[in-house]
């Protein structure tokens, strides 16, 4: 510590304490006030339990008045994009979550044009962001870019279908793909393992780039490293969703009641729901980053190379933009760690005696999953 004049945050016990260690607190308070944004896209055939899973993940009802169309209506329909935004607040932290649903995907007899609508939606969001970023007033850029795409794979097949492969190849350079095996209670454990292996092999065979969890850094503690390792080994996650409370073993759990037993949604032996939720929460920040640094930058360079409307802005403030970006990146890196911890905290189900205003709560040991 440098021997400078002590500022107002004097901790009388430690001489020479400056106080900029309180910087994270300020960042935390600011970001809590600002709130977080996250856009999640769900893609998959109808009837795979997408809506139920989303409702289970975020413990809300995103689709209160839902009418399920019959087969005849589905013949006429093309793929549509339906975005629903919901503001979830927990312990003072606000999350503005947008779920982009794609009804009609995979329903038609001829699915050749299924993904055109979806791809153009993703591109549109990038386009809008690019336009806002290069504009004059950059204070309130709304980030509607798709940060993550859950792709639902049917558990009834023997692996990936031709449609799955074609779709993933079309969007793996635009969005983070997280493959998810839906309705996992259809499968026995052996069948599940076999299916996961088969899917991973096919993904590798077709060179599909799915989202890879970043390895735990070496200065993290063992628990976190172990957890990351477990998460990585379980991809693709096989999940079961439910919002019904069933009585099992004397307590009420969320699950599905069958004549032969109860499938518990939050039991790690039954399915990977908890792992999926953990992954989403601890890596929300990383997902946003990869979208920004990789997919968006790809899109941007493609776009600017092609010319288009932004030609005149290109030379003008390019250097300035770059400099600003560098500065922002350094500051962001400090923000990154704490935002990650904050979002993880906010979605904990178990009520802990954790005070938000102490630095201690930001360290990993106290994170409970």
């Amino acid at each position, binding site marked *: 510590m440098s021997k400078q004049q002590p500022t107002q945050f004097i901790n009388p016990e430690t001489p020479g304490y400056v106080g900029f260690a309180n910087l994270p607190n300020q960042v935390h308070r600011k970001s809590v006030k600002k709130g977080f944004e996250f856009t999640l896209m769900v893609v998959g055939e109808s009837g795979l339990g997408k809506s139920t899973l989303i409702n289970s993940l975020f413990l809300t009802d995103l689709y209160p008045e839902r009418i*399920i169309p019959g087969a005849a209506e*589905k013949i006429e329909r093309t793929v549509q994009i339906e975005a629903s935004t919901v503001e979830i607040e927990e312990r003072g932290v606000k999350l503005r979550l947008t779920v982009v649903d794609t009804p009609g995907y995979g329903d038609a*007899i001829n*699915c050749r044009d299924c993904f055109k609508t979806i791809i153009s939606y993703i591109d549109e969001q990038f386009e809008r962001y690019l336009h806002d970023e290069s504009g004059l007033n950059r204070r309130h850029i709304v980030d509607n870019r798709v940060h993550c795409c859950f792709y639902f794979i049917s558990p009834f097949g023997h692996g990936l279908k031709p449609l799955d492969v074609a779709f993933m190849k079309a969007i793996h350079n635009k969005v983070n793909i997280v493959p998810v095996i839906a309705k996992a*209670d259809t499968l026995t454990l052996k069948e599940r393992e076999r299916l996961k292996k088969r899917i991973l092999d096919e993904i590798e065979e077709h060179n599909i780039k799915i989202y890879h969890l970043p390895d735990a850094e070496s200065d993290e503690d063992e628990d976190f490293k172990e957890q990351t390792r477990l998460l990585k080994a379980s991809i693709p996650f096989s999940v079961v969703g439910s919002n019904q409370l069933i009585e099992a073993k004397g307590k009420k759990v969320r699950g599905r009641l069958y*004549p032969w037993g109860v499938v518990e949604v939050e039991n790690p*032996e039954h399915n990977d729901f908890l792992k999926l939720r953990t992954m989403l929460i601890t890596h929300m920040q990383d997902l946003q980053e990869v979208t920004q640094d990789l997919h968006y930058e790809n899109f941007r360079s493609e776009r600017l190379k092609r010319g288009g409307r932004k030609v005149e802005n290109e030379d003008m403030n390019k250097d300035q933009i770059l400099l600003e970006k560098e500065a922002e990146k350094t500051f962001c890196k400090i923000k990154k760690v704490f935002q990650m911890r904050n979002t993880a905290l906010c979605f904990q189900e178990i009520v802990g005696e954790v005070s938000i205003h102490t630095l201690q709560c930001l360290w990993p040991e106290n994170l409970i999953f």
Partner: protein
Amino acid sequence: MSKGLPETRTDAAMSELVPEPRPKPAVPMKPVSINTNLLGYIGIDTIIEQMRKKTMKTGFDFNIMVVGQSGLGKSTLVNTLFKSQVSRKASSWNREEKIPKTVEIKAIGHVIEEGGVKMKLTVIDTPGFGDQINNENCWEPIEKYINEQYEKFLKEEVNIARKKRIPDTRVHCCLYFISPTGHSLRPLDLEFMKHLSKVVNIIPVIAKADTMTLEEKSEFKQRVRKELEVHGIEFYPQKEFDEDLEDKTENDKIRQESMPFAVVGSDKEYQVNGKRVLGRKTPWGIIEVENLHHCEFALLRDFVIRTHLQDLKEVTHNIHYETYRAKRLNDNGGLPPVSVDTEGSHDSNP
């Protein structure tokens, strides 16, 4: 009991039935049913036993086709139905065999025997159905195959030197596997059933029914039934072919309550309550295939094999085949398709 001509009976019996002798009519009368009280045992009922012996000697054919997307458990179900490995499972394919680009038709025949009765069972598989990105008209190869079998039979029938027993390769029953989405039928399901319900007996089956809870199952079944009704799709047992009241009530019950059957198939056995049962073992319980509380496999099996097997064959022969034959003869101007010194009209009864 229908009676023969009065002269063949003894006078004593006759006097009870007919007050005065009547002249023999020029045209044979339509048999009139009169409840005759037999004075002794004739032995007419032994014809059942004779038929049974005959059937056991000749055995019989049964051709069942399974249609549905890959992975819905078709082969497992057929193996479970006939309790033997009559269908090669797709999961035992080696890695190089991918999903075929067009719908293929693979027919595999087996002879299975039970209680002295031999059955030549042919399972017709349709890999590639509904698996492509573009599934337009993927039912056409299937329709073509079915019509080809009718054509083959027709050609045999029309021959002068007919075989004593024409080999029957016609599809008697088509099990259509519906994916258990829990929502409704898919457009492909509707299109397939619309096109093929007039050509073959379709029995819709909800595959992998262990995906759904009891409420979801009954809701889904109701919705599927309603959709089929709205689109005028007649699945087997078709309403128009019910012969009498007894059939009608029995079939109505099946049509409106049980169908489509929600089934689970398995070829592995597990120990439950001291018995060995076919089932699927999961961390949360064992699903018993033959337990009516768990799934309706037993109902499907009884329906297809134990009660309606002969009826399936008869409807195929008397109705679907006859429709095809009539169409063919009409197209040919009332003449049979094969012009090898054959007569014009004939009625055939195998």
